[in-house]
């Protein structure tokens, strides 16, 4: 099987491939003016043809140069490892591992950019001087139309332009170059063979850092499969060096030198593609070196043998396994035909042997193995095994992948066919991981670690890879600092801005790759690490529930640390932001402060360097916790008021006055109203969960709906606070406005919009686990804040409204002092502040301090109806404040003024009052809007009400005149005179005295100065009697007020209610019996109604005033006396009211009788006397029928004797008489004759029992008010 020319191998070869030591290192450098893309293109063109079949190469004709002639093994091939950097750090390894030496140097020149070919001569010289270790130095002129012969020197190679050239042309050129190279190699081989000594890498100089595996490392390796020998002696110190006799020593040295030079020749054969010869040379060298215990070189030869065998297997040439590599044959199986082991089994076994030899070489200082070699040996084996794993075992594809780094074609890989499981490869990887990197320099450490990481990544062990990369990053930080400290003085003398000092990255020596690319490489690594550990790198608005919080925090800190030493300001900004976003709560205060200080510094530095658009979003998605409209004191918030009263009634709907299902919560749903063109304050609550001050450079409100303009403010939010701040907004058109959040920029962050999130998004735990491990990364991101936790503030913007202001109030300090019942006026001057809009539609409303207590009293169920009416009267009829100005047509023009007059009544309990003036602007248009927006202006006044005249009590006395007249015995008594004189003064005729009664009214003056009281009592429909008195301060005075008795009270009328109608009223039925009820002061409903209506009639007839005309003030105070304080009992009602039916008794005049008083007669005995009973109906409605009963009795005797009248008076007829159909206001006289037989004093009573069914209750009895008294002489 011959190697096929690779069709597509443009990717650089894998430097850790198993066959990597068989490749010739060729350094490509730009010469002259070559642009970077051109150079890259040239390199890739060369890389396409990196594999040269020896059969294609023309051998050099010179006989002394035939040592590595391609004709020796035409099936073999030679592989170039084109590099663009010089690995000068590994020069000490070049003897042991020749493939590390740069054997060819090719300058790549762009013919189009070269003017003078002679200039290139100098370049050749420079290349030779710079790279003396290389065997050929050539300059390849790309896109050169010239023929080779036209070039000035054979050091120049001409490559025709790509279009003009065939695919094979560059291959031909490379074959020619190879031919030249192979011709030069024998010289190098001779140099090696003639060299006095060939030293091991670490023996070269003593001052080189002793890069040795420490004893602990060796102990660690014991556990690895590589260290299966398990018998490593501990490191011996230098003074315990094993010494040999001198002759023996020199003999050993000679043999060792020979073996080493043979091994080097073998190396060269391997590089030259002469694999068979290489295998042979290696085997011989191995045998020699084994004999002198030169473990390091022995192991290296063994490794060469392995590579040779693999390449031969790849080419398909049969070969014999050298005995040296076969496992020792046990004596038992010696006789049998031993099946030679499979190569795939053999190669790892060989690696084990190599590693044990390497370990053994530790015992010889100066001969020990360099870590890089050790680690790369393991990694190469790992690579080989991985290739076989991915390519279904030991297949040609696997071998091609191992030798030529060809990609393995995709195919279904079933587990059973895997020759080496991932786990066994992992064992090799962990062996490589166990190589201590203490003394290794940064480049080697990075190379080893990236190799391990690549191997892990290849196997799909991404977490392992992340772990290794993290170790790499952590490892790098101190090394970079160190290298910077070293580089500092050098940099000051020779400024090299294009080359970064972080030259661990292998292409950093290339001047064409800018440091920025380098940074992006490192940043890509960091991003990779972050992704593995579950830190979302790309989307900043998502919270990932994936990953381990502590680990994430630690990783981010590491990233920040690396960015700091680089220094990469953008990276610092970025990773600090991520750290704050993901784990601010676990960082301590000090950590946060330190981090944020570095963050600010980095941000400022990056900005000053001119980096643009690198900011991330702000870290906390819950910045804006709440937004609310603040009610302004300057701009009163308007309210919506229906313009047509009718619409509000029709809104009620349905038969129910109270509907429990009607929409409640009008308050909650009420939208806030903003007025067009007026700035509104919004209160925004900001959250700062961090331990440092948040510097918000700009902040404004954002919203949808109508247009508006928001103020832009800047502020500082204190640490760990919910911080309220205010921001102003001016709506510029009417409609609905939705405030959705804030647009803000935190210093160091991108300008972002934040929604209002009053509550944290709750991450609902997954009920079903759909994926686990790294696959779960995608599904575990939560959008934050989640849409359902977002709130928005909706406001209505209404058309422009005027603004009124109270300019002046004619009250000092808005307060006034009143006496109870006094009225006082004051004026309010309103000014329209608005420049353009007049005020129309002004209305006024009042509330005062009494309202609340009265309403509360009204709510009590236990009150009787009359009490409720009393409270309602005070609530509704006695308004404490009222407006005297007619507001209906009042208009206040823009910038105009208006005056309103207000009157305040001194009411008990009044301490303050509120005057609310609602105003609006209704534009004059044809269509009248259904509703309007009203603004309210409130004025609070404080009132002090002092007590003036109080009603302390009252009683009623009927005019009674009998007794004194009897006592004096004649009609001219002084008492009667007094009475009639009194009646005269009050204008009541003596005869009509029965229609009046006297009220005894007790009044107290609680005011500290004397007050004059006037009480008006309407004694007739057109006349009034006035009682005037002066009451001294603190005194109680009883006033006598004549009252006209009240008739016609319809006690069947219910007690009215002034409150709005209620749906259900429970009748206050008293189940108590009459006696108890009377004692308790609770009356039956009928009595209550009677008392109520009597009192109403009484109050209607009375009015009282007081005047403080005695005091020295200019304007005398005056006011009304609150007569509603009068309390009336049913007994008083009997005195006040006139019954419906009045029964009177009198005697018809005759000669036997003599009148001595109004109801008093002196009658002679045994004379016929006529008793006239008069029944008068005062009922206005119906005719009354009933029975008149006359009851005579002996006077002043106990009832048992008093009623025994039969033998003393003889009546003509019966004492019970029907009286039928008495018309309204008719008086019926019934006469009864009688003769008194015995002397003495008698009294007659008459009663009338109604029999008419409908007349105010059947069976009601009316009794004559006065008894008729007869004295019989």
């Amino acid at each position, binding site marked *: 099987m011959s190697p096929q020319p690779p069709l597509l191998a443009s990717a650089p070869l894998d430097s850790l491939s198993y066959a990597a030591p068989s490749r010739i290192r060729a350094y490509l450098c730009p010469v002259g003016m070559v642009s970077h893309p051109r150079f890259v293109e040239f390199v890739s063109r060369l890389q396409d043809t990196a594999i040269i079949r020896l059969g294609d190469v023309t051998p050099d004709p010179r006989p002394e140069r035939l040592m590595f002639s391609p004709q020796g093994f035409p099936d073999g091939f030679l592989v170039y490892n084109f590099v663009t950097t010089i690995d000068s750090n590994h020069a000490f390894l070049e003897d042991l591992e020749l493939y590390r030496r740069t054997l060819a140097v090719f300058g790549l020149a762009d013919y189009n950019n070269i003017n003078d070919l002679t200039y290139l001569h100098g370049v050749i010289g420079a290349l030779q001087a710079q790279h003396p270790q290389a065997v050929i130095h050539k300059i390849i002129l790309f896109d050169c139309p010239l023929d080779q012969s036209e070039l000035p020197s054979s050091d120049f190679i001409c490559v025709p332009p790509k279009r003009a050239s065939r695919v094979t042309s560059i291959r031909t050129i490379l074959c020619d170059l190879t031919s030249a190279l192979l011709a030069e190699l024998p010289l190098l081989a001779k140099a090696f063979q003639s060299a006095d000594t060939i030293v091991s890498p670490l023996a070269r100089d003593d001052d080189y850092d002793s890069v040795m595996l420490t004893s602990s490392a060796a102990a*660690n390796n014991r*556990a690895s499969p590589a260290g299966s020998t398990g018998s490593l002696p501990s490191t011996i110190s230098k003074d315990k060096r094993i010494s040999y006799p001198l002759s023996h020593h020199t003999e050993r040295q000679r043999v060792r030198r020979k073996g080493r030079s043979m091994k080097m020749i073998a190396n060269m054969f391997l590089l030259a593609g002469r694999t068979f010869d290489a295998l042979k040379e290696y085997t011989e060298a191995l045998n020699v070196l084994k004999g002198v215990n030169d473990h390091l070189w022995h192991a290296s030869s063994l490794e060469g043998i392995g590579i040779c065998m693999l390449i031969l297997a790849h080419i398909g040439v049969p070969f014999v396994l050298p005995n040296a590599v076969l496992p020792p044959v046990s004596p038992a199986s010696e006789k049998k035909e031993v099946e030679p082991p499979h190569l795939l089994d053999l190669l790892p076994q060989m690696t084990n042997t190599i590693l044990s030899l390497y370990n053994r070489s530790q015992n010889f200082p100066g001969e020990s193995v360099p870590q890089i070699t050790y680690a790369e040996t393991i990694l190469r084996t790992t690579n080989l095994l991985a290739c076989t794993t991915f390519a279904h075992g030991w297949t040609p594809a696997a071998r091609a992948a191992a030798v030529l780094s060809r990609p393995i074609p995709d195919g279904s890989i079933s587990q059973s066919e895997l020759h080496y499981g*991932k*786990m066994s490869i*992992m064992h090799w990887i*962990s062996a490589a*991981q*166990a190589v201590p990197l203490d003394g290794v320099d940064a480049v080697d450490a990075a190379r080893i670690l990236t190799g391990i990481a690549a191997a*892990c990544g290849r196997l*799909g*062990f*991404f*977490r*392992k890879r*992340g*772990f290794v990369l*993290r170790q790499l990053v952590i490892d790098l930080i101190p090394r970079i600092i160190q290298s910077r400290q070293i580089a500092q003085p050098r940099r000051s003398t020779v400024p090299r801005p294009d080359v970064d000092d972080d030259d661990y990255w292998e292409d950093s020596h290339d001047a064409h790759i800018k440091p920025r690319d380098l940074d992006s490489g490192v940043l890509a690594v960091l991003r990779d690490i972050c992704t593995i*550990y*579950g830190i979302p790198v790309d989307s900043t608005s998502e919270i990932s*529930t*994936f*990953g*381990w*919080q*502590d*680990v994430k925090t*630690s990783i981010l800190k590491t990233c920040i640390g690396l960015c700091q030493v680089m220094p990469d300001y953008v990276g610092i900004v970025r990773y600090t932001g991520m750290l704050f976003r993901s784990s601010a709560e676990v960082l301590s205060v000090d950590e946060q402060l330190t981090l944020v200080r570095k963050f600010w510094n980095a941000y400022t530095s990056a900005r000053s360097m001119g980096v643009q658009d690198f900011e991330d979003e702000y870290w906390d998605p819950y910045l804006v916790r709440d937004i609310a409209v603040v009610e302004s004191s300057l701009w009163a918030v308007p309210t919506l008021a229906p313009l047509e009263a009718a619409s509000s009634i029709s809104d009620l709907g349905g038969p129910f006055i109270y509907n429990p299902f009607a929409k409640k919560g009008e308050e909650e749903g009420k939208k806030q109203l903003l007025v067009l063109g007026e700035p509104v304050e919004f209160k925004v609550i900001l959250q700062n969960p961090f331990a440092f001050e948040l510097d918000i450079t700009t902040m404004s409100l954002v919203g949808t709906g109508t247009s508006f303009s928001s103020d832009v403010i800047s502020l500082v939010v204190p640490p760990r606070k919910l911080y309220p701040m205010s921001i102003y907004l001016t709506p510029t058109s009417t409609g609905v406005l939705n405030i959705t959040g804030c647009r803000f920029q935190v210093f160091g962050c991108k300008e972002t919009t934040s929604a209002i999130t009053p509550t944290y998004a709750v991450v609902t*735990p*997954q*009920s079903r*686990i759909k*994926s*686990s*491990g*790294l696959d*779960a*990364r995608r599904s*575990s991101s939560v959008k934050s804040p989640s849409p359902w936790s977002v709130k928005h503030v909706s406001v209505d913007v209404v058309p422009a409204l005027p603004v009124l202001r109270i300019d002046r109030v004619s009250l000092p300090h808005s307060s006034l002092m009143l006496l109870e019942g006094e009225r006082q006026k004051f004026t309010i001057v309103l000014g329209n502040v608005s420049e353009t809009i007049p005020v129309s539609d002004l209305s006024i409303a009042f509330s005062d301090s009494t309202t609340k207590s009265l309403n509360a009293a009204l709510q009590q169920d236990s009150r009787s109806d009359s009490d409720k009416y009393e409270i309602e009267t005070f609530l509704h009829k006695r308004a404490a404040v009222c407006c005297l100005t007619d507001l209906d047509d009042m208009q206040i023009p823009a910038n105009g003024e208006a005056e309103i007059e207000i009157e305040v009544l001194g009411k008990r309990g009044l301490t303050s009052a509120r005057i609310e003036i609602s105003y609006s602007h209704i534009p004059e248009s044809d269509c009248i809007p259904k509703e309007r927006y009203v603004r309210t202006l409130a004025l609070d006044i404080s009132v002090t009400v002092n007590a003036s005249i109080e009603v302390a009590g009252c009683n009623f006395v009927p005019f009674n005149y009998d007794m004194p007249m009897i006592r004096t015995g004649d009609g001219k008594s002084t008492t009667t005179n007094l009475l009639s004189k009194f009646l005269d003064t009050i204008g009541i005729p003596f005869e009509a005295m029965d229609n009046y009664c006297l009220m005894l009214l007790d009044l107290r003056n609680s005011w500290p100065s004397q007050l004059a009281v006037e009480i008006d009592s309407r004694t007739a429909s057109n006349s009034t009697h006035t009682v005037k008195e002066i009451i001294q301060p603190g005194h109680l005075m009883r006033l006598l007020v004549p009252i006209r008795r009240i008739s016609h009270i319809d006690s069947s009328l219910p007690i009215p209610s002034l409150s709005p109608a209620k749906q259900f009223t429970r009748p206050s039925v008293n189940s108590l019996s009459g006696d108890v009820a009377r004692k308790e002061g609770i009356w039956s409903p009928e009595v209550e109604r009677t008392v109520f209506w009597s009192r109403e009639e009484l109050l209607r007839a009375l009015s009282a005033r007081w005047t403080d005309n005695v005091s020295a003030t200019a304007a005398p105070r005056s006011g009304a006396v609150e007569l509603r304080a009068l309390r009336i009992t049913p007994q008083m009602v009997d005195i006040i009211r006139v019954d419906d039916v009045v029964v009177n008794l009198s005697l018809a005049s005759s000669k036997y009788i003599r009148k001595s008083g109004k109801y008093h007669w002196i009658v002679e005995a045994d004379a016929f006397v006529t008793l006239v009973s008069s029944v008068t109906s005062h009922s206005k409605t119906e005719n009354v029928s009933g029975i008149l009963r006359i009851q005579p009795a002996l006077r002043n005797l106990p009832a048992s004797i008093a009623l025994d009248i039969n033998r003393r008076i003889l009546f003509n007829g019966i004492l019970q008489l029907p009286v039928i159909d008495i018309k309204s206001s008719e008086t019926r006289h019934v006469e009864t004759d009688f003769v008194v037989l015995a002397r003495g004093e008698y009294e007659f009573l008459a009663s009338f029992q109604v029999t008419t069914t409908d007349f105010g209750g059947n069976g009601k009895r009316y009794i004559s008010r006065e008894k008729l008294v007869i004295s019989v002489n």
Partner: protein
Amino acid sequence: MSFYLAIIGTKDNAVYDLEFGTYRQGGDGTSKFSADMKQLCPFIVHSSLDIVEEMQWNTNVMHLKVIDKFYNYLISAYMTAGNMKFLLLHETRADDVIRQFFVDLYDLYVKTLMSPFYAVDQTITSPVFDQRVKMLAKKYL
């Protein structure tokens, strides 16, 4: 001897972690990890998850035994039926004892899981659980 125990959820998240030492050989139950090692423990355990995921399909037992190592430290794993990973970082090989420890820990975990207030992958904050795990550690390790 020191140990580091971590219970890893399905999203690579640590549901519970504990660092403790042995009570045997005169130990007082506190871990003797160096400061660096303390920091490194979660990372080592986390990187072993790759191996757990590789191993879990190749066996039908829950106790995966020692699956990984890092220098001198060994990592034992136990895979529950609900894809929770118990990982123990330890220094010496003691498969049987660790298996008993894991089985008892699984018992504790299942009890926790049955709580109506606990959902899969939530961090276990119960002090009782913590105390019982420490008792288990004292008993076995």
